[in-house]
């Protein structure tokens, strides 16, 4: 098991946010955590990333307890995470201070191309669109060759067309690099489109209500009856009738 979250509970003061979370993720798996806003899913990701020590319980990665942030596991924020004072290539190279200059150049070039930012190497984030900034942040994360990526509603601030393109991009990159990915969203469609498994969480205090395996190959057909059935079962699980 790559990531083991065992008996994790968390409170902010008197407010209980997470209750008794048990989740294991295997290497190379893409797990999406979905739930209503305020259910503690972002807190869970911050705990896994080592940014928030849990009130109780433990997270282990490769059997080692997580005690803080670590460059082997990179957290991708919404596009706000890129450094606005650095150019695209400087952003991607930010975490590469332990490798040789030649390796650094090679990786920057590789990831600029992988995320489709060729021609923008010298641009500053203010000159990029929201989707490009998001891809830049993913490239910066991948450049240090982490084994785990944590993505906290990474496409939440993007318009719906860009969001669809970004999901396709993420799947392409994930298939090329085979990272273990923990992805948090409140978008049920997004979870079913991306995940190997979807973790459905309850209202606060967040518990795991159900874990669904999405055994459909990529690219997924969004009109496939199985896709629709899986999606509707999550809507039902969260307690939303699928009508507007």
């Amino acid at each position, binding site marked *: 098991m790559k990531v083991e979250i065992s008996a994790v509970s968390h409170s902010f003061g008197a407010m209980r946010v997470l209750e008794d979370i048990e989740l294991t993720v295997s290497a190379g798996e893409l797990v999406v955590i979905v739930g209503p806003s305020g259910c503690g899913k972002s807190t869970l990701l911050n705990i896994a990333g080592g940014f928030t020590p849990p009130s109780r319980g433990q997270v282990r990665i490769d059997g080692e307890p997580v005690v803080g*942030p670590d*460059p082997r596991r990179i957290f991708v924020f919404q596009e*706000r995470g890129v*450094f*606005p*004072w650095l150019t695209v290539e400087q952003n991607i190279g930010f975490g590469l201070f332990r490798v040789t200059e030649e390796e650094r150049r090679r990786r920057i070039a590789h990831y600029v191309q992988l995320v489709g930012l060729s021609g923008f190497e010298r641009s*500053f984030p*203010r000159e990029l669109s929201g989707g490009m900034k998001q891809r830049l942040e993913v490239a910066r994360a991948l450049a240090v060759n982490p084994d785990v990526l944590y993505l906290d509603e990474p496409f939440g601030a993007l318009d719906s067309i860009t969001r669809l393109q970004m999901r396709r991009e993420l799947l392409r990159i994930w298939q090329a690099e085979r990272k273990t990915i923990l992805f948090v969203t409140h978008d049920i469609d997004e979870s079913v489109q991306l995940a190997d498994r979807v973790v459905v969480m309850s209202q606060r205090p967040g518990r795991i209500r159900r874990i669904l395996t999405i055994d459909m190959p990529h690219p997924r057909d969004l009109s496939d009856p199985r896709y629709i059935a899986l999606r509707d079962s999550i809507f039902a699980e969260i307690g939303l009738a699928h009508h507007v």
Partner: protein
Amino acid sequence: MRRFSPLLGIVICIAAWQIAIMATRSPLIPGPWEVALAIVELARRGLLLKYVVASLFRVTWGYTAALVLAIPLGLILGMWRRGEDAVNPVLQVLRPISPLAWIPIAILWFGVGDASAIFLIFLASFFPMTVAAMNAVHNVEATHLAAGANFGLTRMQLVRSVVLPSVLPQLVIAMRVTLGIAWLVVVAAEMIAVSSGLGFLIIDARNAGNRYDLVIAGMVLIGIVGVILDLVMRRLETLDFVRWGYAN
């Protein structure tokens, strides 16, 4: 056309001044022409450049010394919670005291002369700059610090690669505002402590013969130099390493 509007405003203002003088024949204020002649007179006597340079010299020393001490102090306090809790109340009490209130102390400590004036400019620049640097650190994005920590930066690396670049845009703005304050104060300081500079010119012109044309010439020169200083500082804001911090 828009490029000429600022110039137009000045021309209208001078014209209104001239018309008012002609209409009222008031002896209480000299007209623009007399003031222009006074400036020419200053230039002929070699005082124009001498006084501007004298004032700029004092500002340069007082302001630079303040920046050199205030920026590191403010940054350290901004990053070091307990230090800030201890020092901030003192800063907040000293900050609203006008630098002019320090004049007696300045003369007591440094005597009548350049050192007193420089000390007053230093005080006027030091407090706002320290507070601005401290606040700039507080405004560093938490996500940027988290991202830096995630990539395994040590505390020193985090300061160099995340905190310093983050605070630069706000520091540059604060430097510009503070230079404006320093320039305000040098003129006041020169009225008391020294025998050169634009502030001295104004007081001296009145004391030695009520030369109000020279008084206003001094005021005009102070305004012009102030605008030039501000324009120079504004150039800094267009540099790439701070431009990202200002909304376009």
